[in-house]
């Protein structure tokens, strides 16, 4: 088994590597909900029943080929900060982190697959991939699910599909989602239109940490709402199509900003650079939003291509629990703001001054 400290030292694979369309799509995620027959759902089960289910399921999950040398732990054995780290890395849900006895999490070494036991459903498994590759994420999870299905008696109905605690997840039990970086649509004030458009065709758009969270760092999670009535592949194909359209809109919005408001864009990116390079106290929200502008600058060629990875890792490493793990002690908000600024300065040391010349002069020649 992998130690928690080892897990913490390494950033997740999807934070480091680049996937298709990675400029705009940070990650693709698939979540499957599964339950066992003859066991009450976790929310209704008594403590002993939850514990018994965990004892039955956890060894089976640990024996999966994918879970060789995995990290596996009961949630009650983790400190509040450790649980929060897992939430900040999107490896467990906020709800799961808040749960008591009988809840466990198993995740692979690469941190690309995590399986929560006794979340809202008996099993909530997730696969996360960099860039836009929803189908790939699904295929890898589908295989794991088939392995588990041969050893666990799933609650399934031929008419309603996989039976879930909440009827909103019935059928496939699948939630497919992608994390999109949309600074162009935000700066050009087209984001609300985009969100409403997605809502109209049955897709949900949420902030960085899911339901009811703020859209920080210009990051938006888009996902399917309905799970019953269409196959997994159909749901993914539909979502994929919409995401490609949003990518195109975002690219157009960026081009239009370069065309219509080049000075505003230079000012925003230049200010982000100045503040992040020189601040000594920086709150989370400000840091996230400024890092988003550096990432945009990197997409536009204002900074080097290699700087994007640094930003991707920083987006997670400057979150409160990650800071406290780094400091090896509990920090109050003010101490966190100081450490956050320090880590950002250290990581962005090599970031050269923004060079707007090329992109703006290219535009000039385009106009002629």
């Amino acid at each position, binding site marked *: 088994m992998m130690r928690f400290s080892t897990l913490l030292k390494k950033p997740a694979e999807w934070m480091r590597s680049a996937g298709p369309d990675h400029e705009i799509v940070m990650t693709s995620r698939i979540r499957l909900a599964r*339950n066992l*027959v*003859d*066991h*009450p*759902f976790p*929310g*209704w089960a008594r403590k002993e029943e939850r514990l018994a289910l965990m004892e039955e399921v956890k060894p089976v999950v640990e024996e999966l080929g994918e879970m060789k040398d995995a990290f596996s732990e009961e949630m009650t054995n983790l400190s509040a900060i450790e649980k929060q780290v897992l939430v900040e890395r999107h490896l467990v849900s906020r709800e799961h982190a808040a749960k008591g006895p009988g809840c466990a999490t198993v995740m692979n070494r690469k941190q690309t697959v995590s399986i929560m036991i006794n979340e*809202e459903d008996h099993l909530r498994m997730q696969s996360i991939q960099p860039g836009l590759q929803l189908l790939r994420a699904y295929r890898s999870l*589908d295989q794991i*699910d*088939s392995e588990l*299905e*041969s050893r666990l008696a*799933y*609650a*399934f*109905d*031929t*008419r*309603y*599909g*996989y*039976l879930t*605690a*909440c*009827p*909103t997840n*019935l*059928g*496939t039990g*699948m939630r497919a989602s992608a994390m999109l970086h949309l600074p162009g649509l935000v700066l050009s004030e087209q984001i609300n239109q985009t969100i409403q458009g997605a*809502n*109209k065709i*049955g897709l*949900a758009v949420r902030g960085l940490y899911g*339901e*009811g969270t703020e859209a920080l760092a210009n990051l938006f999670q888009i996902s399917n*709402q*309905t*799970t*019953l*009535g*269409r*196959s*997994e592949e*159909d749901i993914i194909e539909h979502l994929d199509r919409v995401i490609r359209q949003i990518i195109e809109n975002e690219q157009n919005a960026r081009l239009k900003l370069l065309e219509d408001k080049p000075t505003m864009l230079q000012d925003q990116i230049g200010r982000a650079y100045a503040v992040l390079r020189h601040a000594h106290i920086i709150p989370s929200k400000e840091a996230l939003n400024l890092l988003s502008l550096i990432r945009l600058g990197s997409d536009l060629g204002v900074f080097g291509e290699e700087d994007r990875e640094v930003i991707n890792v920083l987006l997670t490493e400057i979150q409160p629990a990650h800071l406290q793990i780094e400091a090896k002690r509990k920090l109050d908000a003010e101490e966190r703001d100081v450490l956050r600024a320090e880590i950002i300065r250290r990581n962005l040391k090599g970031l050269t001054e923004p060079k707007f010349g090329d992109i703006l002069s290219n535009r000039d020649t385009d106009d002629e």
Partner: protein
Amino acid sequence: MKCDVCQSEDATVYFSQLIEGKLKKVNLCKSCAEEKGVTDPTGFALADMLQGLGQESVAEKRNAPGDRVCDECGFTQSDFKKTGRFGCSHCYVVFAEGLESLLEAMHKNTEHHGKVPKRYEATKAFRERLAELREQLQGAVSSEDYEEAARLRDAISKVEAEEQPQEDNDSAE
């Protein structure tokens, strides 16, 4: 406050109506409100809406005042009203009545078309074959092709006799 229908978006539309002398309230998010036609008062009845939530189903009125209880896990209809979640997989059988309209409000279609676990594949194929034959039988009867109808009726009993599904405990029908 969350929307009573989708349970995920924040409610922004609050709707009250008098039904049989009692004030009923529903909280909805914008998109569910539009979908339900709440914005068009002439075409909207709160009673239908509540039925969709499994709160005032015909069956419940008939069985009133007893609250339906799941015989496996002890979960009740009122627990569902409170949490929006079921107690165990068997609840889908116990609370099957009224479930269809609830699912219609949540999903585009109420029949699963995705992955099927191996040990349910035979059951699923069996049910689909039966459904197909029954549909053909209907067609034959309505076009008064009694010879074909007789043939189909025999085919149905043959399938039923041969392929008893092994695993049907969780059928919600």
